[in-house]
């Protein structure tokens, strides 16, 4: 059955029907806000209590990769918005093009995230037995992607943090748990979003979205923008703690 915009009995107009769908999507997004809100709260408390460890952890993240991914994700929100516009004005080829662009940018994000995560594994920055925030400082050969001046600075920062918090290695794991938990959940949302985008692409290639009926494009767009907003907060919270030293 193809639901291409017939009016259901409980609605008076197609417009009212679409507004109800949008409202429902927003209510779902609010539950997502609450879901991420709880995690943000846990992050905020730990950051407040173990600030030196969080600052030290944040300074071991790659600002280049994180910043690049922020730009990629913002750009993907833009292409998604244009895809929604294309469906509203009935430019059927443009919908597919911009959906494809959005998917591509999503995959660029995944690629960079993969590089980042694998660096953290190599740098012994994944919470667990092998976690050692001093690993790169003590074994420069094990971290070829961090150059010498960066390491010098990191060494100075970590020593200061260690002076402020004798349990630095334990508390830095809290930071990295927050990092992997929050970026991991965000990435999971993006995987779901990418799946939905492929589903939309299938529909748009079949020419199913028209100015009269484009509800799925609109709603997936809302979801994709929401995931973007989560990242807008994650980026300064995780990558930009105490960078000014």
């Amino acid at each position, binding site marked *: 059955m193809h639901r291409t915009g017939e009016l259901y009995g409980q609605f*008076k*107009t197609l*417009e*009212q029907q*679409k*507004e109800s769908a*949008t*409202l429902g999507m*927003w*209510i779902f*997004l*609010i539950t997502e*806000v*609450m879901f991420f*809100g*709880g995690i*943000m*709260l846990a992050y*905020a*408390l730990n950051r*407040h*209590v*173990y*600030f*030196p460890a969080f600052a030290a952890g944040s300074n071991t993240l790659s*600002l280049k990769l994180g*910043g690049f991914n*922020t*730009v990629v994700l*913002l*750009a993907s*929100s*833009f292409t*998604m*918005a*244009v895809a929604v*516009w294309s469906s*509203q*004005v009935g430019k059927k080829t443009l919908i597919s093009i911009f959906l494809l662009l959005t998917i591509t940018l999503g995959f660029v994000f995944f690629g960079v995230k993969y590089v980042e995560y694998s660096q953290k594994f190599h740098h012994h920055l994944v919470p667990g037995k092998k976690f050692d925030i001093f690993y790169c400082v003590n074994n420069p050969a094990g971290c070829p992607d961090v150059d010498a001046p960066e390491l010098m600075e990191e060494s100075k920062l970590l020593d200061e943090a260690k002076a*402020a*918090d*004798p*349990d630095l290695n334990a*508390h830095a794991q809290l930071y990295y748990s927050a990092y992997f938990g929050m970026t991991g959940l965000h990435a999971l949302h993006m995987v779901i979003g990418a799946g939905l985008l492929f589903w939309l692409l299938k529909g748009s290639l079949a020419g199913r979205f028209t100015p009269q009926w484009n509800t799925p494009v609109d709603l997936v*767009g*809302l979801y994709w*923008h*929401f995931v*973007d*907003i989560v990242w*807008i*907060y994650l*980026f*300064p*919270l995780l990558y*930009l*703690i*105490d*960078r*000014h030293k």
Partner: protein
Amino acid sequence: MSEQEHSEHIVPPATYLAIILTLLFLTGTTIWAAFVNLGRFNIVVALAIATLKATLVVLFFMHAKYSPKRTKLIILAGIFWLALLLGMTLSDYITRVDYRGVRFPISQVSQQLPAQRG
């Protein structure tokens, strides 16, 4: 709740372009601001810029500006409950003092503990 409420408002791509450029500019600003020592206000500035960015996304990319009042109410209610969750809990923890009269950040506590143990 009148049914002639509005016809769908279509936001032109030029608006989206202006918004994305603003968002990219604000991203640059937030990175720049992180390298300036503002003490406790670094986080305030970072969150203010993030909130400004999020607001732009919600209003324009997500069309909230052109949504019916019902939708706006739902969004504001969500933000309100999030503010309750964060505001009430953090105002408790940030002002907390433990049984020794030491303010909560443990990093300070663990510095003082060895001295107290003698």
